[in-house]
């Protein structure tokens, strides 16, 4: 049977390109491009694969800002059919994000909500549980495999010590692990088509926010020597000496 799947997509600064200030160790966030968060891509891929297998529709929700349409276009290019961009995102506040997303989820008919198990920039990892609590839908967490059978969703849930096969009735929330799939790189034609597709944009209502006082936010100190050679031959000669020294 076809399934209506909602996928939750987070936009983040491109942390791979992020540098920290060599003097203060603080992150340099200016001019950092934005992109779709890693696990959100696995979530999109999982949702699109279900559509390809069973039919149905994939809707994406981004709680982001005016700058998030690029992330929605990327989601479209990967196979998302309809996109809802909720603006008003103001940093990583899981209690706000969860409420905003859950409110929207409740207005869209669905069999599954798929999201990442832990986002790559903040590692919060709370949204799956929070959204399950807010919607009352059971959570099938950290899935490395999803199987649908009528109104039953079964996943292989990867735990630290072992894996568990668990199942529940739909509608259900599924969080996915990085290992579940390799997100597709959409072909150019699809990317172009995605650019023309409309995005449903609406502001999300303000929610009570929990704030902390930041004492410091710096690159962690490590006592490593950080001697890095870009000249391979010089590197090999120096590093082999260091290796001999280390294992003596």
């Amino acid at each position, binding site marked *: 049977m076809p399934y209506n799947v909602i996928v939750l997509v987070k936009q983040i600064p491109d942390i791979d390109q992020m540098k920290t200030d060599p003097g203060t160790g603080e992150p340099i966030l200016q001019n950092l491009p934005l992109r779709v968060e890693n696990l959100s891509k696995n979530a999109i891929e999982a949702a699109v694969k279900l559509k390809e297998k069973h039919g149905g529709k994939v809707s994406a929700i981004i709680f982001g800002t005016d700058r998030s349409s690029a992330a929605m276009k990327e989601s479209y290019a990967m196979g998302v059919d309809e996109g809802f961009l909720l603006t008003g995102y103001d940093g990583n506040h899981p209690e706000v994000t969860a409420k905003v997303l859950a409110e929207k989820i409740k207005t869209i008919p669905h069999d599954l909500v798929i999201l990442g198990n832990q986002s790559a920039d903040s590692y*919060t990892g709370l949204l799956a549980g929070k959204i*399950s*609590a807010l919607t009352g839908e059971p959570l099938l967490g950290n899935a490395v495999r999803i199987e649908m059978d009528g109104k039953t969703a079964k996943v292989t849930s990867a735990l630290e010590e072992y894996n568990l096969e*668990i199942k529940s009735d739909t509608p259900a929330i599924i969080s996915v692990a990085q290992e579940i799939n390799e997100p597709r790189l959409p072909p150019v034609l699809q990317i172009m088509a995605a650019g023309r597709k409309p995005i449903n944009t609406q502001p999300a209502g303000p929610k009570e926010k929990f704030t902390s006082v930041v004492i410091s936010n710096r690159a962690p100190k490590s006592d490593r020597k950080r001697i890095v050679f870009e000249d391979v031959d010089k590197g*090999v000669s120096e590093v082999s000496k260091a*290796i001999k020294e280390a294992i003596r």
Partner: protein
Amino acid sequence: MKALVFSDNQEIVAQILTSIRGKSDADAAVVSPVMESIDQYGAAKLYELTGTPGTDAISQSLSKIFAEGKYDLFLAGSTVRGREVAGMLSEALNLPAMTEISDLVFRDGKIVTKRFFYGGKTLLEEESSARVLTVMPGISEASRSQSRSELVKVELPASKITIVNRIDKMAGSVNIEKAQVIVSVGRGIGSKENIEKVKPLAEAVHGEIAGSRPVCLDYQWLSEDRQVGLSGKKVKPKLYIALGISGQIQHIAGMRTSRVVVAINKDKSAPIFEEADYGIVGDLFQIVPKLVSALKQ
């Protein structure tokens, strides 16, 4: 302060209890069956949760215990299940949460925490009145206390989740935790066959082969007991050579205490170079044979 500590991994419960001993009163909750001696880490009460351990059921049960017991803090070990329970409970009780903390200090009724941010590139130190915390494994070296916990059995309510099957992970025969020298390969190795190409290096330094999570778990190019990192093994060799490993924080978490770290990566800005004593920027397939011949000289 009065804390309720929970983890599906009882060793983490012992670590968290040890880390807050003397600073906060604490009770703990674990999923049945209880581990031997888990009643000796300083929890006044030890709740043993029996029945089907769906996270919805655990969260409902602990929300009730938390509210009725007038606790100030809920500390969950940051495992897959721990984060799920923390998310559910924080929403059910409307309590502010702080996640993935690696350090915790109580200061004038507030708490000061440390956690990694921006994919592990920065360490964020904050003061807050968070009431739900997810705590990274290894926050302290667990040690026993004088007192014994009072055991309280709690039957979990019905769960919407059915457990169908448990699948144990495949295990090999090495113990990389004790290895003196480790040659570790990441996704940059490209294929299972390519691991053969770095074996001469492992032989030259008398090291064990280990790997990052994608290599051990995702692609299964190596057995899972060779995985280094947060969700793998914590290693502390004299020498750790990282080949084609980007150096994400979850990997670093498993090898940070290595004595000397060497990294080879073709990407000059790979974070592994921040965590290395010596690095060479370039193609590992070109560099490894050169290194092997230099080591043989």
